[in-house]
């Protein structure tokens, strides 16, 4: 109460009312639509590079959704890491290894039809189970929007400190591994 109270006086969450002048639904639907479209493009494009670009679009849309969900810090992280990091990496990899592939060749393998059907099946399963579930709707009416960065910082260095450190170890391992694999020497096999 003490520490928290002093901190929280800087910004009064309870009083802060969000003044939303936009229609949330339209935004959501547009974003969702674009997201879906671009991810479908990712999995169906013949050229890998094109699908990488579409992936960038998709990831950006995800960031927009995060904003809608009151995860502004996460949205920034998403853009920075995913689009600015991973995607660039993907792009580099694509460009480094795209010499041999012919643009006309099909990118989907021979089992696309059964996988399509099974995917739809699983989708149906998921949707049905979703429909049956009854989540509490109590908090939905309120749209609580507030800056989250401070809270996430508290979280990461507080209760989630251990996973934070472990993740840094993981990153170290992956760095080492990447360097190892990228050495220009033949792999025995």
């Amino acid at each position, binding site marked *: 109460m003490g520490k928290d109270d002093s901190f929280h006086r800087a910004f009064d969450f309870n009083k802060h009312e969000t003044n939303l002048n936009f229609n949330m639904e339209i935004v959501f639907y547009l974003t969702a639509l674009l997201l879906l479209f671009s991810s479908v493009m990712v999995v169906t494009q013949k050229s890998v590079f094109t699908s990488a670009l579409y992936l960038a679009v998709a990831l950006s849309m995800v960031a927009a959704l995060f904003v809608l969900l009151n995860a502004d810090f996460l949205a920034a992280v998403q853009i920075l890491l995913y689009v600015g990091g991973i995607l660039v990496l993907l792009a580099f990899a694509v460009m480094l290894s795209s010499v041999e592939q012919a643009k006309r060749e099909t990118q989907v*393998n021979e*089992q696309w039809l*059964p*996988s399509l059907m*099974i*995917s739809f*099946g*699983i989708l*149906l*399963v998921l949707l*049905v*189970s979703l*429909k*049956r579930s009854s989540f509490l709707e109590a908090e939905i009416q309120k749209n609580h929007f507030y800056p989250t960065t401070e809270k996430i910082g508290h979280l990461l260095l507080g209760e989630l400190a251990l996973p934070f450190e472990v993740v840094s170890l993981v990153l170290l391992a992956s760095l080492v591994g990447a360097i190892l694999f990228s050495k220009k020497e033949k792999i025995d096999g």
Partner: protein
Amino acid sequence: MIEHSYLIVLLPLLSALTIFFFGRSLPLKGAVLGICTLGITLIHSLGIFSILLQNPSYITEISIPWFRFGIHQTEFGFLIDGLSALMLVVVTSVSFLVHVYSLGYMKDDPRFKRYYAYLSFFTFAMLLLVVANNFLQMFIGWELVGLASYLLIGFWFEKTSASNAGRKAFITTKVGDIGFFLGILSLFSLLGTLNFAQVQGRIEEGLISANTAGIIALLLFCGAMGKSAQVPLHVWLPDAMEGPTPVSALIHAATMVAAGVYMVARSYFLFQHGPFSLEIIAWVGMLTAFLAATMALVATDIKRVLAFSTVSQLGYMILSMGVGGRAEGMFHLTTHAFFKALLFLGAGSVIHATHTNNIEEMGGLSKKMKLTFIAFTSAWLAISGIWPFAGFFSKDGILEATLNSNNSFLFWCATFVAFLTAFYMTRLYLLVFITEPRDKEIYNHAHESPKSMTIPLLVLALLSLVAGFLLEHSVPLLLSSQVLPPNVHASSAHTYPHWLVPAISSAAALLGIFLSYLIYWLKAVSAEKIASTFSWPYRLLLKKYNFDEFYIYCIIKPADWLAQKLALFDYHIFDQLGVDGIGFLTVKLSQIHDWFDQNIIDNLVDIWGKLSLLGSSILRKFQTGLVQNYILFILFGFGLLMVWQLKINFIELLR
């Protein structure tokens, strides 16, 4: 004497057995034994005969019971009355003379001993028949006589014709014996006894109806038809001439063939009791007499002529029986025995001299064989019915009997047959003895026979002359011992002068002789011309009215065919289909089992292996090596699992 009458039957039997088994060591290979035995029996029979002549109603019956069940009883016995005494004399006398004759005739035969054994055996069987007091014993004797006849006809069995003739005789008489046996069975079952006297008694009591008695009588007559060669069972007698001539004389002239007539005489009461049986046998006898006489007209074998003559005379006897002349019939039987035996023995003498049977090769033998000629003349005159020979009296009696019956047609037929008899006998006599010899060789070679042969001839010749006088009144006397119901066919109202019938018969006989004399001696009308003019009847007679052909085609050939078909049937159906078929089926069954075992059971075992291979070849396809496939399978399984767990039904899917 009479009490020991069984000896008459027993002695020839013993002699036959002795000769058969020990004849080789006996003098003359048993012929002497045979002759002596027969001599004894002859004397015995004559003794009995004389006793009965003095006392005709002295009937003796000795019998031993044989088997009985309930009221049915049979026995084994002897009946000595006038009828059997007469037959005894006939049989033993002729048999004795034939025994003596055969000494000379069969002298060079290699089976001399067996011949005498058979002769004695035959005599035994005939005597057994004659003295029997019941039908069963008579039947036994009947069959034994048939056996002896078969053995003796086929005595020279190397000749196929002889053995065939023996078989034919046996089988033909057997056909008649079937009826005979049926008659005996009927009597036995209806009356319970077979003894003559008892049967007669029971019939007179009226135990069976008249129609039944008549039918039984006809059944018994079937046997007579066979044995006494009546039409249609006469076919064996001409062929029976294949046997030695003394055999023909004894069996087929005098005794065996007379057995039928004797049987009719014995069971005469039965015939009288039936309404129509006597008529039928009269007509049968008439037909036989007529047909046989016509067949004798054209025969060229001396023995065959005599055979037909025998058949004809037997028909005469049966005819006499049928019209009520029982005594006359027996009288004729006696005289016929003598002169027919004489005829045969004479023919045997001729054959012995000329070594041929064909009369067309003979001729003029009267100059070469004087004794035979004299004897034969006596016989010829007797059979033709010329006074004072025996045949005149007996034939006369028969003609009178036919005249006294209601049927004058029978009388005129019988007279005509007498005419024919005279004709063909004269023809024979002329062609053999009187006419010019046709074959010089044979004529030169001919010689008289030895004494053993000629003496019996002369004895018989004498008997042919005097028997008529001797027996003319004895026979009816003897036969009167059997009390019979009065003759059904009552004498017709007409009375004839007693010289009418003798006159007519003599006229017929003389006419026959004269006609034959014309044709064959004077050659006024050529015999060949007659033959060619009446060529169709001539050929029919030569063929003996085709009786044999008829029997062959209508009876024997179908029976053969049937037997063959049945044999084939037996072979194909029972042997091949049945026995072999079962074997075949067994083989097939085991083959099926084998196939079953191999294919089905082994396949059952193989299937499991094949199933594994099949399963594995299917499952192998899932191992693709591609991770994406594996992910797909996982998802697929996951989907199914979820669907099942969430119990999704398709209605839910339509939100």
